[in-house]
């Protein structure tokens, strides 16, 4: 009867076991890395918008304050997407003819909305209030990145819960916000 296993089979088996263990660990680590990657959170993706609005030009080159268009950012939960009226405030004069404004002009005249694509979309169970963050000195770019350098706005941060917590923990410990800043109830209701 022929020998099925040779002496080195033992070595083979042992190495297989070790290898299996390593691979398993690798898979776990890779998975953890994957869910933390920018890609998993669409960071850096700039979706197509109905109007090719250029933040870099308005906020950057022209240096228009964010609050000029996002009017309610300081006191409301919702920062406010500017109405067509606000746009036309300037653009009745500047670049009035440009065809790219067609949707905005139409909106200003008819009141029909311009429907933008959300870049920063939080889940329904997370309640974020722009006003309180701005008033506590959180700069716009802390979450939105250097919008003033973006031709098309892209997500700059993951906006994952862990990412929020990093900030909240600091604020909680440095005392500005107090311990409750890391309560579930601060963001979840």
């Amino acid at each position, binding site marked *: 009867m022929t020998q*099925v*296993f040779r002496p080195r*089979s*033992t070595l083979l*088996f042992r190495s297989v076991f070790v290898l299996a263990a390593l691979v398993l660990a690798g898979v776990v680590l890779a998975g*953890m890395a994957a*869910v*933390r990657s920018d890609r998993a959170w669409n960071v850096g993706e700039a979706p197509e918008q109905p109007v090719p609005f250029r933040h870099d030009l308005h906020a950057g080159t022209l240096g228009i304050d964010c609050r000029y268009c996002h009017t309610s950012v300081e006191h409301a939960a919702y920062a406010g997407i500017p109405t067509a009226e606000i746009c036309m405030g300037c653009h009745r004069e500047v670049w009035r003819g440009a065809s790219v404004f067609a949707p905005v002009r139409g909106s200003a005249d008819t009141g029909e909305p311009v429907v933008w694509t959300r870049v920063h979309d939080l889940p329904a169970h997370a309640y974020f209030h722009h006003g309180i963050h701005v008033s506590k000195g959180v700069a716009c770019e802390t979450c939105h990145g250097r919008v003033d350098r973006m031709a098309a706005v892209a997500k700059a941060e*993951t906006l*994952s*819960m*862990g990412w929020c*917590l990093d900030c909240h923990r600091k604020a909680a410990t440095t005392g500005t916000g107090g311990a409750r800043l890391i309560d579930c109830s601060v963001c979840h209701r």
Partner: protein
Amino acid sequence: MAALPHHEAGAIVLEQRFGWRWAAGFAAALGGVLVLAVACAGLFVWGVGVWGTNVPYVWAFDIINYVWWIGIANAASLLAAALVLRGARWRTSINRFAEAAALFAVLCAGLFPILHLGRPWLFHWVFPYPATFEVWPQFRSPLVWDFFAILTHIVVTALFWYVGLIPDLAALRDRARTRRGQVVFGALALGWRGSARHWLNHQKAYRILAALVVPLVVFMQSTVSFEFAVTVVPDWHRARFAPYFVVSGLLSGLAMVLVVALLVRTLLGLHELVTRRHIDIIAKLLLANAVVMAWSYGFEGFVAWQAGEHAWHSALEKVTGPFAPLTWGAMLGTVGAAQALWFARVRRSAPALIAVGVLVNAGVWLDRLVIVVGGLYRDHLPSSWGTYGPTWWEAGLLAGTIGLFCALMLLFVRFVPAISMFETHAEHGGPGVRPGVRP
């Protein structure tokens, strides 16, 4: 009877002809597995609402089945381990499938902590791992303790069972006729050559695992009992729950091993290996356990009587109110049925023993029901006193897991030595070793 049993033991796997009985049994078991699949599918599609559960009865068959199965698993392991540690001569033929029964039972039990969740696909949140939302489990919760307990139990039982198998797998390798058989059994035998060193290490490992199993089992059953004992539910908040769960669990485990032993014995015709004596000893253990169980019930009543008006009323309502049939059923099943074992004639008749075993298991299951559901019958506020009635979806889970257990058992006797060959061999004085003794 020197060489015969040895051959027979090996022959079970190698030469035994599995006739229609096995096929029929396996088909029936597969039917049960199918029921389980359907019950789970409905559960995932429509949600736990398909059960009869409600407020206050948020737990029902899900937890009853869990507690029942885990009890069987624990007791079977305990039996097997105790046998190994005691080195009882007659154990050899029993403990292999006792181990198997334990392993399969814990697999069945392990399903329920996941199935009973409202959002089962998130069960992994109970496990402490660095998630991006940076929230950790709540280590004060018995459910977390339970999660670890079950995990440990599965690992240890599996190891215990597998280590015990190694020499037999080697034997199968050597007897295998096809190359595939040789490779498969060979790989599983992990290069066992039967050298003295192998024997020594093997026996060490085997006994260490056995030694691990014993405390583990007590720990497991206690953890299960804590799920109830740590609450403020009047009928659950009891320090004595831990020993109570160990005792009642042991009862169901012994009964299950007894039934399995008899079925395997008749199914495989192992009358020489699983002798009357084996059966007789298990039966007596069962009887002894039933007596302890009777004492526990009595103690329950005594404590209720001492614990004040509300406790006493709820205890009385257990035996007179809507839960009375279940309560009495539990007592008759666990304590009553076993009393038949006082008679040697009963202990000698396989059908009678099987009947007793089944009754005892049913009794223990009812006992779990009276605890899990009946425990909430008289909660603190009368305004929340409610009613509960099971649905077929829940019954399906019970039937399904029983089917799964049987299916696994049948596969086990079909493809793995249901009887420890090497030990039987050794015991029956054939060439080989006495466990732990250098040849």
